[in-house]
């Protein structure tokens, strides 16, 4: 086994009430061990060697930890990764090996590659091997092919609204799962739609502004690279509803690489795929699967481990490669 590479970023929105317009956009390849760093109080980063320090303070204050996995693309079998079941299993092994067992998992979509029942079945089977038993899903565009998301809703959308959006609370943190892969319009990006936005406005209206918010959806809710469709047309409206909150973290998938951005009190984060990497924005002719040498593949796939530290309003986001 090659060594584990961890990049850690702590978002600390707790230390002032000043209207910070701090902005940072940076990017890290999970596999290279590159670290996203921002100075000035909004976001801090810790190297792997300092993880143990955080662990001690986090457990002292009580903590919530969960894992984000994304883009399993079960059924994909092209050269970029002929064994997506194997790499998903590796992700599960990695989750089971975390020092603090996560309470649950979020899957940010593209569970399947072609929306086939057996693809969903395989993922379900593999995820049953994970220590966290609860998995919260939002669909990717690959999960709603041919049937407008009917199968996805039947499998994963029990109790969800509309095409599969919902919210829940865990240890004082409010989680909102959004669907932005339905009814896509020619030439457009991801779409949330009027009905979902209205629901969301109502969902957060009565929450205290001190409530930490975690929003998760498949396609990024910020403009990563619209030329490749990496953004959501009406995400600004959704984010407007979250302006009053001190700590907002947005978790997305879709682009098969890690990226972070901090804008005001919102931290955006995209996760790696457990299946295959995609090129950096504009660095290839298209966003198609990127073929990397077999021995490098697991270094560009991964999981995201998120720790919420009660009382500090900070979320630590750790990306782990599967290498």
């Amino acid at each position: 086994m090659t060594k584990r590479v961890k990049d850690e970023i702590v978002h600390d929105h707790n230390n002032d009430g000043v209207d910070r317009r701090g902005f940072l956009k940076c990017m890290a390849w999970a596999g290279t061990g590159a670290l996203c760093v921002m100075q000035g109080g909004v976001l801090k980063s810790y190297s792997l060697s300092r993880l143990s320090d955080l662990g001690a303070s986090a457990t002292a204050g009580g903590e919530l930890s969960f894992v984000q996995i994304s883009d399993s693309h079960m059924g994909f079998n092209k050269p970029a990764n002929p064994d997506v079941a194997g790499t998903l299993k590796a992700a599960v092994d990695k989750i089971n090996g975390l020092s603090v067992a996560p309470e649950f998992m979020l899957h940010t979509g593209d569970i399947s590659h072609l929306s086939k029942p057996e693809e969903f079945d395989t993922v379900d089977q593999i995820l049953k091997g994970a220590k966290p038993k609860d998995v919260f899903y939002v669909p990717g565009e690959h999960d709603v092919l041919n049937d407008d998301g009917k199968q996805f809703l039947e499998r994963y959308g029990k109790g969800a609204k509309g095409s599969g959006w919902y919210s829940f609370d865990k240890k004082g943190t409010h989680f909102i799962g959004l669907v932005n892969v339905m009814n896509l319009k020619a030439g457009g990006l991801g779409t949330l739609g009027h009905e979902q936005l209205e629901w969301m406005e109502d969902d957060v209206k009565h929450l205290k502004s001190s409530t930490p918010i975690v929003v998760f959806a498949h396609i990024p809710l910020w403009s990563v690279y619209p030329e490749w469709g990496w953004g959501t047309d009406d995400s600004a409206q959704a984010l407007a509803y979250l302006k009053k909150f001190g700590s907002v973290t947005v978790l997305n998938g879709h682009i098969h690489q890690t990226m972070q951005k901090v804008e005001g009190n919102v931290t955006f984060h995209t996760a790696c795929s457990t299946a295959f990497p995609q090129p950096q924005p504009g660095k290839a002719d298209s966003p198609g699967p990127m073929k990397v040498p077999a021995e490098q593949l697991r270094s560009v796939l991964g999981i995201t481990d998120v720790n919420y530290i009660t009382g500090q309003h900070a979320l630590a986001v750790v990306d782990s490669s599967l290498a």
Partner: protein
Amino acid sequence: MRRGVCSFVLMAIGIAAVAMMGGGSRSSVAKAGQPPASNAEVKIDNFSFGPATVTVAAGTTVTWTNRDDIPHTVVSDDKVFKSKVMDTDEKFSFTFAKPGTYSYFCSVHPKMTGKVVVQ
């Protein structure tokens, strides 16, 4: 026994005759001044339709072939035609009977757009 063989042969001849007639009637339509039934190809490569605009005569069948490692669809903006999802090397065909401009896109990757102009 002999009768059985005989009727089988006759049946086969009958099928051949129908097939020939079918071929004949198609060519006679073309002679009557309408454009011959023809075909056009659109390839999907690197998340784009090539060519992005095809201009064809009415009656032409356009066939899209997905040559990407990622599935795509072909859906007209006003739902005149809509493919199932096409995995790598899968095809979708549609015959354009009426003149007009048909804009279409990939409903999975809506940044992918194309046009069929039928004259």
